[in-house]
């Protein structure tokens, strides 16, 4: 028990030994950790958003001049396919109006509608940009009686897929970069602490303390600083999220924030702690080396 308490006691002594430096370190560490946490939330939200993407899942059949009854019976036949969730009929008029509202030119020509085809929209269970189901449905019904052309949002699906890969790669890259920055800043912070305590470390070195023995107090100090900074950053994150969503954007805080589960924060904390311990031990070692000319 005392074996555990002694390093903690020493760490606390370093922590409270220089309030200015401790305050500075915690401010810097909190900022970096806050950025990582915001990053975690954003990364999680983006991933979540793309994973749930089912929007581009409709196959469109363009119809030749067939009556609505015929079209509906074709639709009912298609509905028997287990991959199909719903079928919707759009008349020439509806297609025309949808196209006008999409293109946004207010010109309305009563006769123009006749130049537009009627449509059957086939809804599927496709998600995550799985195009093979869409392809097979398209192939199966494009030859049906009265169908002149079939399509789905192929281009958009593939573009979204590429976008998703780009964003994923970017998130990973930035995450790794952020982690390096955090390690480096911890390293600098511990070095600052060490330079102030250079005399003390020299004394320890003279009496024959090993680098590990000397490091323990400073590693403990860094651990305490990281715990405080992590909690501070988390509280700031919650406040920030609440403020931007509920106050600035005036939306329901709870329902709009895609918030990662607590375990994600736990992983981030473990990563932060590991980087802190490693960089502080490296800092102490290189410092002891540099004092032993």
């Amino acid at each position, binding site marked *: 028990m005392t*074996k555990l308490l*002694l390093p903690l006691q020493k760490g606390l002594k370093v922590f409270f030994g220089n309030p200015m430096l401790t305050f500075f370190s915690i401010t810097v560490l909190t900022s970096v950790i806050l950025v990582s946490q915001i990053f975690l939330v954003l990364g999680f939200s983006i991933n979540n958003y793309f994973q749930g993407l089912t929007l581009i899942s409709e196959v469109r059949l363009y119809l030749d001049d067939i009556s609505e009854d015929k079209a509906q019976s074709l639709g009912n036949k298609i509905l028997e396919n287990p991959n199909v969730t719903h079928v919707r009929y759009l008349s020439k008029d509806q297609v025309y109006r949808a196209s006008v509202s999409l293109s946004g030119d207010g010109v309305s020509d009563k006769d123009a509608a006749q130049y537009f085809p009627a449509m059957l929209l086939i809804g599927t269970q496709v998600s995550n940009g799985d195009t093979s189901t869409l392809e097979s449905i398209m192939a199966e019904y494009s030859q049906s009686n009265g169908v002149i052309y079939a399509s789905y949002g192929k281009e958009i699906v593939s573009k979204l897929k590429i976008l998703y890969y780009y964003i994923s790669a970017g998130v990973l890259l930035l995450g790794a970069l952020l982690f390096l920055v955090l390690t480096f800043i911890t390293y600098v912070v511990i070095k600052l602490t060490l330079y102030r305590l250079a*005399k*003390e470390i*020299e*004394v*320890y*070195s*003279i*009496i*024959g*303390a*090993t*680098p590990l*023995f000397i490091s323990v107090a400073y590693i403990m100090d860094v651990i305490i600083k990281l715990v405080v900074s992590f909690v501070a950053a988390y509280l700031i994150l919650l406040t920030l999220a609440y403020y931007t969503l509920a106050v600035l954007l005036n939306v329901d805080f709870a329902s709009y924030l895609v918030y990662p589960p607590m375990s994600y924060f736990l992983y981030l904390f473990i990563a932060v702690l590991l980087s802190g311990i490693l960089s502080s031990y490296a800092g102490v070692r290189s410092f002891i080396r540099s004092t*032993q*000319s």
Partner: protein
Amino acid sequence: MIRFQDVSLSFIKGENILTDITFQAQRGSFTYISGRSGAGKTTLLRLIYADLKPSGGIVNIAGNDITGMSPRLVPFLRRQIGIVFQDFKLIEDSTVYENVKLPLDIFRLSRPVMDEKIDALLHRLGIINIKFATVRTLSGGEKQRVAIARALINEPFIIIADEPTGNVDVENAYAITELLHNVAKNGTTVLMATHDLLLKKMFPAREISLDRGKLVLDTKI
């Protein structure tokens, strides 16, 4: 106990700070290291506690050649050597007790055993009355006694004192030198670097003198 065999040291190639130093110091002996400023006294002492590595020759401490010692083992060598400096090298914001206790922390002795050892030593050095004083508030003479107490607490084979009287008044200088002589009489090998001619007269002992890195005098008494 301490054996130097043709030891040379240079920081820059071709410019020797120490040249072919050969001497031995037996167990329980007291030796002055003298010489002008810049002669190489501090450098010679630093070789003993492996703060520097010789460029040539052999440094042997207690039967072990430490010339090629791995940095990993240096702390273990230092636990057998007590070092006293001109500028004390104490932790100023801690108490006398905490400073003297530092070398014992490494060994994780039990508290009563440690306290008993520390009290006995502080009594012997006449500083038990300032046991809980903060080092910052002490006089130079008191600080040097604390430093000597820290050097002695582990009962080292060797005491190295680099101008230990440099920052204390004359009376304290005598007292500290006498103290180190007594330490030697108890079986510890003591090496003390000094400029002070009077001290050497008052407490005669063997003297090794350096001049520009060469051993120019060795009075084996």
